[in-house]
């Protein structure tokens, strides 16, 4: 177990390093001058300001030197200074992590919850209820999330004034963004769960469980839903990615502070320290999620425990 943990930790560090390197490479290899990106197209900055910027951020040094400096700083936990904001990156990100985490976690919980509810509602029984629930699920997964967000705003905030349109204060402000982010995810998950339920419905152990007098609900709760949970676990990497990607649009539409918005502006203005810090954050999130996923596999499926083959 200890060796396992050590190996995973090492792999995690390697992933972080690679992510940071990649970000550095990508943004430095892009055509165009970083200083121009920092200044923006409409600034009336004289050339000496540009020179000063280049000098301050060491942009005139050879790339390997810049890279080494960047990595050395990262290793000591120093994320550097944002080009765009002129602030330490840690400060730029500090108050943004919370809102994004809040949004992502609530959307994740909501989507998984909704998906299982939908599967429960439609599972087993045929008929109208199932068809309607299935249709709603289908609709949910088909609607582009930011379009959904804007329509939701139009209806709930502007038309009826039920929910605040923007910001991140209080749980009310979280309702619409979380739903917007969660619904399409829930649609996909519900479909996956339904499919898996279908596949597993033929298994002999399901017949046996029925023969014991288990009702549909018990069957789902005690038997089939766990099997259906496996692909959901498999999808958690995707869920994480979708949440991060979705956060960018959702945060923009609902004017929530958060990492997604920071990312958009940072990429747009080629704020390398911020982008690579964000990549580190996102890589770290994936490393953690993958670890959890692998553990979840082991918890859910005992067959994998024995073979010990799961990474």
């Amino acid at each position, binding site marked *: 177990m200890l060796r396992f943990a050590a190996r995973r930790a090492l792999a995690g560090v390697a992933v972080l390093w690679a992510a940071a390197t990649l970000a550095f490479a990508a943004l430095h290899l892009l055509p165009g001058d970083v200083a121009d990106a920092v200044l923006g197209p409409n600034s009336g900055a004289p050339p000496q300001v540009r020179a000063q910027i280049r000098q301050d951020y060491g942009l005139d040094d050879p790339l390997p030197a810049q890279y080494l400096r960047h990595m050395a700083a990262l290793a000591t936990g120093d994320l550097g200074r944002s080009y765009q904001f002129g602030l330490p990156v840690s400060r730029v990100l500090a108050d943004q992590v919370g809102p994004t985490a809040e949004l992502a976690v609530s959307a994740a919980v909501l989507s998984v919850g909704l998906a299982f509810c939908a599967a429960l509602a439609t599972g087993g029984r045929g008929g109208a209820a199932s068809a309607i629930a299935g249709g709603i699920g289908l609709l949910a997964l088909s609607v582009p999330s930011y379009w959904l967000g804007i329509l939701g705003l139009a209806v709930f905030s502007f038309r009826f004034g039920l929910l605040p349109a923007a910001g991140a204060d209080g749980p009310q402000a979280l309702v619409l963004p979380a739903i917007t982010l969660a619904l399409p995810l829930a649609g996909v998950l519900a479909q996956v769960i339904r499919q898996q339920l279908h596949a597993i419905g033929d298994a002999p152990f399901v*017949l046996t469980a029925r023969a*014991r007098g288990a*009702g549909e609900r018990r069957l789902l709760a005690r038997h089939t839903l766990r099997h259906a949970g496996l692909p959901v676990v498999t999808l958690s990497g995707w869920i994480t990615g979708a949440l991060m990607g979705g956060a960018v649009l959702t945060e923009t539409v609902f004017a929530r502070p958060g990492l997604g918005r920071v990312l958009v502006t940072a990429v747009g203005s080629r704020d390398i320290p911020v982008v690579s810090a964000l990549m580190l954050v996102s890589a770290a999130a994936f490393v953690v999620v993958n670890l959890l996923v692998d553990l979840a596999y082991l918890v859910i499926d005992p*067959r994998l425990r*024995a073979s010990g083959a799961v990474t």
Partner: protein
Amino acid sequence: MIRVEGLVVRFGDVAAVRGVDLTVGPGECLALIGESGSGKSTIARALLGLAGAEASVAARRLEIGGRDARDFDERAWRAVRGRLVGFVAQDALGSLDPLRRVRDEIAEPMLIHRTAPAGEIGARVVDLLGRVGVPEPRVRAAQYPHELSGGLRQRALIASALAAEPGVLIADEPTTALDVTVQARILDLLADARRAGTGLLLISHDPAVVARLADRVAVLRDGEVVESGPAERVLGAPEHPYTRTLLDAVPRARTAGSPPGSRVVLEATGIGKSYGARAAVRDVSLRLRSGETIGVVGESGSGKSTLARILMGLVRPDAGEVRLDGAPWSALPERRRRPRRGRIQLVHQDPHGSFDPRLTVGRIIAEALPRGPGRRARALELLEMVGLSAGHLDRRPRRLSGGQRQRVAIARALGAGPGVLVCDEPVSALDVSIQAQILDLLAGLRHRLGLAMVFISHDLSVVRGVSDTVMVMKDGRVVEEGPVADVFERPSHPYTRTLLAASPTRASRAHAAPHER
């Protein structure tokens, strides 16, 4: 308890059951016998309202526990299942939820029907496991199904069917995967239950088992009852010719006339394999010559399947080595083994699990065949060799009977044209007549092509019929081995003696009193 008249079950246009009448009263045992695919399992499932979505079920009369079940809704059915009628499914190996512990599976009926106070359930589970003859019940209760051998799983399944003390027990081939000692124990247990008032609907291909338990016997062919009556009469003096063929296919020695060759095709030395602290196989060696058959018998859980998988190169042994055709085998990486895979084939103990549920029978078999035209024709030929027909070619395994699936597995193994065949309970789900057909088929191959076999079976008479030498396993060890006649006539190890003594031989059936212990 159960009374059915005119039961008809159709799968699409095919009527699997056509107008069957039967009754099972309290404390009474009705045995359903019949060839593979005759509709036995379908009847069993229909009596629980579980014939499946593709099935249409109709009956003139269907009474369960005195109530008309024809207009039962789901709720009413649920009250019946597990409580009034317990069910042991034929597919014992796949009938336990792989994600749940054995104890949870066994406890489930008690929880559903609230037949035991929550506090006592744990103790009852252990008690039940003990009663069905599972050693170390406490340890086993905490394990997952994949950690159990086939026989252990079957016993766990029986325990779960009995957990809520049902009024009637429907047992579909309850002893297929059990060695004779354990089988005897299960039969005793069922007899006890029957004496305590439990009705029993027993489905079995094995006349000996039927003879031990049944009051009455119904003989099924193509979904119809061709003969029924008191067990003694039907088994002792069958009237219908079909019944006679079912019962009279006496196993004969199929080894005669073809002495084994001299070439050693498969050799295992000092094989050992442990799962955690449990040694599944310890220090087993064997040499198999072309044209030779080694029978493997032994206690359930003694490591037979594990040995088979090691021989196949599917599981890497912790100790020892397997050589195929004199060349290294178990020590090779899979990539190097692959070209020679066709030389050695396995008939899985759990055929159902070894089929990709998405493929049709035709494609399952074709997979074993060399690429090229005529694969389908060859697949059909193989199917016919095991007694199936073109109609089965495009079905998916789910829609086959237990015995049919087993035969597909055999056809697939033969399709590769192996020189060595490892059979793990290849005929456990087959009635005697089809058993005979399969065994003749294997004997023919052996005779003509020098096919060598490792033949694992719980059925001593079958083993005796096909094997040249026999190995007796217990707790992962070979406790006795030798020429088949020697071992069977003059067993030296006490376990072998118990085994032989417990065997419900055909000879015993004529005078086996149904109520005798």
